[in-house]
């Protein structure tokens, strides 16, 4: 229950779906402090109340920010690092936007929407990592980027979203390479199909009950956020195929 003892964690897109579930499960695992970020603060208030029920002693900071706006990202990290006294252990880049639903083909994709998706899903995490690093570089840290199957396979109709995730996966590799000598780890996780508002919007004709509940996919995130994954970096994980044993690096 205390796998995340004393960890200070920032989760983007924490008001619903996977982000909300991660907040709850990280709190259950003994995290010391959570900075939860989303575009609308009302939904965050509810998540905080739920977190406080499972972990009454945890520190929770709510920050309303739009990750497609660089000034919001500066404000987000200024507040989080003020509250966390300059130190951050884990960053989960979970926030992302789907774009128009139903999703248009690339040929029909409105330019402004295409740019907005890339801003939120690719430039946002890029800037967030830059601003998280100073708070991680001395003591080490874990960066977890949430990707998708659409980030390794170009599915017709998944437009800007899939392309942004291809970008995110490439960027994760580059960050991991640049940070190889440091104690900061960068990994990326495909949570698989989940019954969330975003996935229902992506595939409105499908039956959502066939998809996983977000609560079923958080084990790999807990593993990556904890010290159990020390030394694990530059790897792609599939949440629904993850077992703690498979994740561990062989001991030398």
């Amino acid at each position, binding site marked *: 229950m205390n796998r995340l003892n004393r960890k200070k964690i920032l989760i983007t897109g924490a008001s619903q779906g996977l982000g909300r579930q991660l907040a709850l499960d990280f709190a259950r695992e003994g995290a010391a402090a959570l900075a939860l970020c989303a575009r609308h603060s009302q939904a965050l208030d509810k998540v905080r109340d739920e977190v406080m029920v499972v972990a009454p002693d945890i520190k929770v*900071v709510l*920050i309303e920010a739009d990750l497609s706006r*660089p*000034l919001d990202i*500066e*404000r987000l990290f*200024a*507040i989080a*690092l*003020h*509250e966390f*006294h*300059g*130190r951050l252990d884990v960053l989960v880049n979970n926030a992302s936007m789907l774009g128009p639903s139903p999703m248009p083909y690339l040929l029909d994709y409105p330019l402004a929407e295409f740019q907005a998706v890339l801003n939120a899903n690719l430039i946002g995490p890029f800037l967030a990592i*830059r601003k998280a*690093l*100073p*708070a991680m*570089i*001395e003591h080490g840290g874990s960066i977890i980027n949430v990707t998708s199957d659409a980030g390794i396979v170009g599915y017709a109709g998944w437009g800007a979203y899939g392309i942004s995730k291809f970008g995110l996966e490439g960027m994760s590799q580059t960050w991991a390479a*640049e940070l190889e*000598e*440091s104690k900061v780890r960068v990994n990326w996780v495909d949570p698989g199909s989940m019954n969330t508002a975003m996935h229902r919007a992506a595939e409105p004709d499908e039956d959502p009950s066939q998809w996983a509940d977000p609560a079923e996919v958080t084990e790999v995130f807990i593993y990556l956020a904890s010290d159990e994954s020390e030394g694990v970096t530059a790897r792609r994980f599939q949440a629904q195929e993850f077992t703690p044993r498979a994740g561990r690096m062989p001991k030398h």
Partner: protein
Amino acid sequence: MSTLFELELPPELSAKEPLERRGLLRDQVRLLVVSRWTGKVIHSHFVRLSDFLARGDLLVFNSSRTLPASLTGWIGSDDFRVEVRLAEHLSDDAWLALLLFRAGDRSQTRLRPGLIIDFGQGLQAQVEGSDSTNRRLWKIRFSKCGTELLDLIYRLGQPIRYEYAAAPWDIDCYQNVYSTEPGSAEMPSAGRAFTWKTLLQLQRHGVRIATLTLHTGLSSYMDDELDREHPASEEEYFISQETAEQIRDAHQTGRRVIAVGTTVVRALESAAERSGFVEPGHRYTRLTINAGYPLRVTNGLLTGLHEPAASHLDLLSAFIPAEKLRKAYEEAVRKRYLWHEFGDLNLVV
């Protein structure tokens, strides 16, 4: 207090823009290296910094993050506009601030305790009185505090910019790449040229790195006469146990402690005033360092180039005799080095 030496600084030597806005990198500034002992000057480039550092040298950085400390507010029903520059967060949660009115505006004379400044978005501040030590500063208290206030400062504020800035550069230009906790009125700019690449290369070269936090106050009170007096300001700083130990270890093993910025010198020397050793903790300092001050902790300094009237230059004279510094500065002017936060750097070792 008199000026250390006179120096004609042509206006074109003020750096007007950050290098990264010209398609270059932050670390592509020049480096003027001056020997503390001989006064010998070497002209180099910042990317070659490691040439002048030895394996085991400890570089100490100030990781304070710059606030967008300039807020626009309105006073009273006449809607007098005032620029509020936050100077210092006081321990009783009030702030000291510089209140600037438009030229010719007589509102300055009407400033009095009890006035309310309205910033919009539900944020107000009450003027509590003028500061007892600095005649240009006022004590104000905001209607919000903590995270809520910080959030609004970021939503409403702009970085403090001076007249030589060619454009209203955004806050990222006034942020060091390694900054963490917010609290500085102005950027601790000696570290601006560091890129992650330089930091990693220095570590590979065997240079050690430590951080502390000192939240800087204002470098100018927009009053030439007062600025020349260098009124002693109070600044909040924090030094961790880990950093204190790294410094002690460097001293015990005969290695140099090099401050990145005058703020780091001030914090380290303040923390060592009582016992001669750097004591960790969270304190406020009013220490003034000038020629003849016996430096107990710092052996070298990386800093920007300062105006002759600036108090930073007094601090430099604790490292190097004024006459040697004057010669180095004259050479920097001849060689067209650039001054101020976006400018070139000076290593004194």
